[in-house]
C-alpha cells in the first residue's frame, strides 16, 4: 500500500519511536513520518514537558509524614484493641473467681476500658479506608505509579519520559528504604531538570531528603562537629562514595579513599527533619550546622573553605564540571539509547556537547538526535522490561492498569522505584534476556485481557509498520487465536528490540 519512498520515511519514524521514545501509539508513525528528528526535537520544546502536574499527589515530605501518622495510628489502635482484649479476659477470670479476689483498682470489665489513653487518636477505631485492605501509604504509592504510567502512555513520542526514566535510574533511590518518598522524589528532584542543567539536577538529587536517607547521610555526623562530639557519633562515607562513583565522575576515575572521607566530612549536616518530632516539616531537608564537620576540606586536589551548606554545593558544582563526569554521563546515555557497546564516536560527541554547554541536558539530548551514529546503529538493543511493557500498552491504544503494571514489573525483575542497589537497574541485554520467558507470560496475560479490543494486524501496523519482518507477519497471520496473535506480535524480536 505504501510507496518505497514513504516506507523509508516510515521506517525512520518507527526507529525514532522505539529507540528514543516509548513506542508508537495508533497513528504515531504517520504523524511524525515527514520529519522524525524534527518531531523528537519539537517534543522537547513543548511547555511543561517532562513534568507531572497533578494536584492529587502529595509532596514527598507530605507523603512520608502521612505514612508516619497512619502507622502511628494503626499502632495505637492495635494497643487499644489488645488492652480491651486483656480487660475482657481479666473480667472473665474475675467473674469466675468471684468478687472476693477483685482488686480495688481493677479496670471495669467494660467494652471501653478506662485505660484508654487521653491522647487516643481522634478517629474511630475502624478508621474508614477508601479501599479496604489498602493502607493510605499504599494508596499514595499507587497514585504515584498511576501518574507515571499515564505520563508514559499519554506521551506523543515519549522522548522526554525516557529521559526522566534514565535520570531517575541514574540518581536512584529505592523503595526498600524510602517507599513513601520515591514517587515524589522523581517529580521533585528529577523531572524539573531533565531538560535543564546537570548541575541543578545533581544539587536537587543529592539534597533531596529521600536521597539523604537512602544513602545514609542523614545519620552521618562530623566527628569534630558539636553533635558528633556530644553524641560520640561520626562519619558515614557511603553517600560521598556513591556520589563520586555512581552519580558524577564514575568508578576508577582517580579519586582516593581520602577524597571520599573528606567529601563525606563536607556533606555532614545535610540531613532531614525528623517526622517523629515535627508533624509540620518532618521529612524536609535541613542543613544542621551542629552535625557539620568544621573546617576546610581538600577534595580531589582543591581546598574548600567551610561555608556551611555551601561547602558541599561547591564540591558538587565542581564535580558537575569535571571532565570525567561528562564522559561518564555520555557513556551511560549512549548505552541506554543506542547500544550496550555504543560507538565511541557517539560517546565523544555527547561528552563534547556536555562539556561545551556546561551540562545543558536539553542540548545533550539534541546532540543525541543530531548524531547520525545514534540512528545508524543496528536495531538490536533489548528493551528493558518497563520500556517493553509500556510499548505494548501504547500499541493497543488502551490504558494501563497501575496495579497490574506494578506487579508485572516485580515479576520481570524491575519493580518500579525498588532498584536493588544504588547503581540502579542494569542497562544491558545480558541482565534481561533470560527473563524473556517471563515476558511471554506477561504478554499472554495482557493479550487475554485486551484481545476483544485489539486487532493483531492493527497492532503490527501501529507498532512496527514497515519494520515488521515477513516471518512475524506470517506467524501472526497463522495464529490460532487473537490472543496468540497478539502474544506473537508483542514478543517478536522487532518489538523486543529497538
Amino acid at each position, binding site marked *: 500500500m505504501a510507496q518505497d519512498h514513504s516506507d523509508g520515511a516510515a521506517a525512520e519514524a518507527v526507529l525514532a519511536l522505539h529507540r528514543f521514545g516509548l513506542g508508537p501509539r495508533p497513528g504515531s508513525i504517520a504523524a511524525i513520518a515527514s520529519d522524525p528528528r524534527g518531531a523528537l526535537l519539537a517534543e522537547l520544546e513543548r511547555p511543561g514537558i517532562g513534568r507531572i502536574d497533578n494536584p492529587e499527589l502529595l509532596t514527598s515530605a507530605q507523603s512520608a509524614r502521612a505514612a508516619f501518622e497512619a502507622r502511628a495510628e494503626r499502632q495505637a489502635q492495635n494497643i487499644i484493641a489488645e488492652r480491651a482484649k486483656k480487660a475482657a479476659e481479666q473480667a472473665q477470670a474475675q467473674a469466675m473467681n468471684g468478687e472476693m479476689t477483685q482488686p480495688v483498682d481493677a479496670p471495669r470489665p467494660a467494652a471501653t476500658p478506662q485505660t484508654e489513653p487521653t491522647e487516643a487518636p481522634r478517629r474511630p477505631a475502624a478508621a474508614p479506608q477508601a479501599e479496604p485492605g489498602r493502607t493510605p501509604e499504599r494508596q499514595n504509592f499507587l497514585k504515584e505509579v498511576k501518574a507515571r504510567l499515564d505520563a508514559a502512555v499519554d506521551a506523543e513520542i515519549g522522548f522526554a519520559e525516557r529521559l526522566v526514566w534514565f535520570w531517575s535510574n541514574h540518581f536512584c533511590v529505592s523503595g526498600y528504604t524510602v517507599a513513601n518518598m520515591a514517587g515524589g522524589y522523581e517529580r521533585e528532584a528529577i523531572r524539573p531538570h531533565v531538560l535543564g542543567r546537570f548541575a541543578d539536577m545533581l544539587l536537587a538529587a543529592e539534597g533531596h531528603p529521600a536521597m539523604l536517607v537512602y544513602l545514609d547521610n542523614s545519620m552521618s555526623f562530623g566527628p569534630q562537629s558539636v553533635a558528633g562530639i556530644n553524641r560520640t557519633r561520626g562519619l558515614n562515607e557511603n553517600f560521598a562514595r556513591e556520589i563520586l562513583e555512581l552519580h558524577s565522575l564514575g568508578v576508577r576515575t582517580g579519586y582516593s579513599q581520602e577524597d571520599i572521607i573528606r567529601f563525606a566530612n563536607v556533606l555532614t549536616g545535610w540531613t532531614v527533619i525528623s517526622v517523629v518530632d515535627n508533624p509540620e516539616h518532618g521529612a524536609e531537608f535541613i542543613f544542621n550546622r551542629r552535625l557539620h564537620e568544621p573546617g576546610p576540606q581538600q577534595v580531589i586536589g582543591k581546598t574548600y573553605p567551610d561555608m556551611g551548606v555551601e561547602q558541599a554545593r561547591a564540591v558538587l558544582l565542581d564535580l558537575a564540571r569535571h571532565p570525567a563526569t561528562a564522559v561518564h554521563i555520555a557513556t551511560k546515555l549512549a548505552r541506554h539509547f543506542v547500544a550496550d557497546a555504543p560507538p565511541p564516536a557517539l560517546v565523544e560527541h555527547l561528552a563534547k556537547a556536555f562539556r561545551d554547554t556546561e551540562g545543558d541536558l536539553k542540548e545533550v539530548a539534541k546532540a543525541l538526535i543530531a548524531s547520525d551514529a545514534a540512528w545508524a546503529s543496528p536495531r538490536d538493543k533489548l528493551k528493558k522490561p518497563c520500556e517493553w511493557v509500556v510499548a505494548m500498552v501504547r500499541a493497543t491504544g488502551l490504558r494501563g492498569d497501575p496495579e497490574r503494571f506494578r506487579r508485572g514489573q516485580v515479576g520481570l525483575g524491575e519493580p518500579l522505584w525498588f532498584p536493588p542497589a544504588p547503581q540502579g537497574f542494569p542497562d544491558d541485554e545480558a541482565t534481561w534476556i533470560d527473563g524473556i520467558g517471563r515476558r511471554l507470560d506477561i504478554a499472554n496475560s495482557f493479550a487475554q485481557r485486551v484481545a476483544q479490543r485489539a486487532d493483531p494486524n492493527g497492532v503490527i501496523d501501529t507498532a512496527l509498520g514497515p519494520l515488521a519482518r515477513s516471518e*512475524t507477519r506470517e506467524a501472526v497471520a497463522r495464529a490460532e487465536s487473537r490472543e496468540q496473535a497478539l502474544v506473537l506480535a508483542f514478543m517478536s524480536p522487532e518489538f523486543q528490540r529497538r
Partner: protein
Amino acid sequence: MPSLLHAPTRREILLGCGTLFAWAYAPKLARAEGRDPRFLVLVLRGALDGLALAAPVGDPDWLKLRGDNALALDGKPSALPLDSFFALNPAMPNLYRLYRAEQAIIFHATATPYRERSHFDGQDVLESGLTKPGASDSGWLNRALTLLAPDERVNSLGSKAFAVGPVTPLVVRGSAPVMSWVPQYLLPASDDTQARLLELYRHTDLKLARALEGRKDLIAVARSAAMDTMEPQDQPTAIGMARVREYFADASGAAAKYLASPDGPRVGALSLFGWDTHVNEGAATGQLAGFLGALDGAVAAIEHSMGAAWSETVVALVTEFGRTARVNGTNGTDHGTGTVAVLVGGALKGGRVIADWPGLKPASLYEDRDLAPTTDLRAVMKGVLKDHLRLDDAALAATVFPESRDVKPIAGLLA
C-alpha cells in the same frame, strides 16, 4: 514512616531479582567414580562483614576494635565457639549444628584479587573470576560448566543452565546456556504459543531463541519432578525481617529442589541481598544478625530440600569484599577488604576454620582500616571445583580463573 530515620538500611533486598542456577553438562569424571555431585553458590551482595559472622574472640585486639559491637563468648546472646580462637554469630544455629557435624568449613581473612571498594566492581571480580573488574561477559561457574564434559549430556533436556529469578547473575552467565525460573502467579502461555514463538525466534533472532529454550526445558524438569509452584513475590514494599527470612528460605529451597531432582541441573547460583550494613549493624542481635539468621534458614532449607542428595552437596557462601574492621560513625561498617567464605554441605570434611590469621593491630590492618586478606578466595573455589567436580588444575588456572597459576587449589576439603 518511622523507618525513615531509624530503620536499618535494607535497600539491597530485591525480591524480584533473587536467584539463579546454572547447569547442564554432567560432571562426567565424578560420575565415573559413582558420585553425582551438586554445587550451589550463594552470592551475598552488598559486602558481608566477615568479622560479624565469625569473630576472632581469641584475638587480644578484638574487643578493643569493636567494643560493644563485638561478638563475645560471654555476650548476650553469647557467640558459639568454633575452636579456641573463632566463634560463630549466635544467629546461625543451623550452620553451627552442621559445623559440629563436620559439614561446614569457614575460611577467614579471604578476599578476591580486588582491592578497591566499589560494590559493582567487587562483584564483577567475584563473579567473573578475572583479576580486574570490567569487560567480562561470562562468570567462572559458567566457564567451569563448559569444561565438565562437553560431549556428554545428562539427558534429552540438553545443555541448559538453570536460573531462578528474572535477572541472571554474572557468575553463571556465559556460553553454557541458562534456563531461568521465577515463581508463578500468572497463567503461563500455552505450550503451543511458546512453540510458535520459538519457531519465529529461530528464524529471526537466535539469542532470543536460546533464552526462550531455557524456559521450555525448565518447565520439563519441573514437571518431571512434580514440583510445587511457589507463592508470588509481588509485594516489594518496605520489608520486614519475616519476609526476608521467608524469601531466603523459599528461593534457596527451590534451588535445592531443582538440584536434587534426578534429571535436574547439578550446578547453580543465586543472589541474596542485604549485606551493606553502613548503619546500626548490630552484632549478636540487630540488623545483620537478622540477615544472618535468614541466611541460616536458607542453609537449613537447602539441606532439607536436597534430601538424600545432601551427602553429595557443597554450598558456597561468598561475598564481594569485607567491611572496615572498626565501627564507623553510625554504628555500622564501611566497605573493606578481608572477609569470610563459608562452605557447607554433606560432601565436606568440615568442622574447621581455615585461616592464616593476620591479626587486628592497626599495623596489621589493610590500609589501617580493613581485615587484611591472607587467603585468596579463588584457592577455596578451585579446591571445591577440583575435588568435588573433578576439574583439572590446568583448566582451573587458565579458563575458570585466568591468571591464577600461582593460586593453588586448597586440598582436602572434601570428605
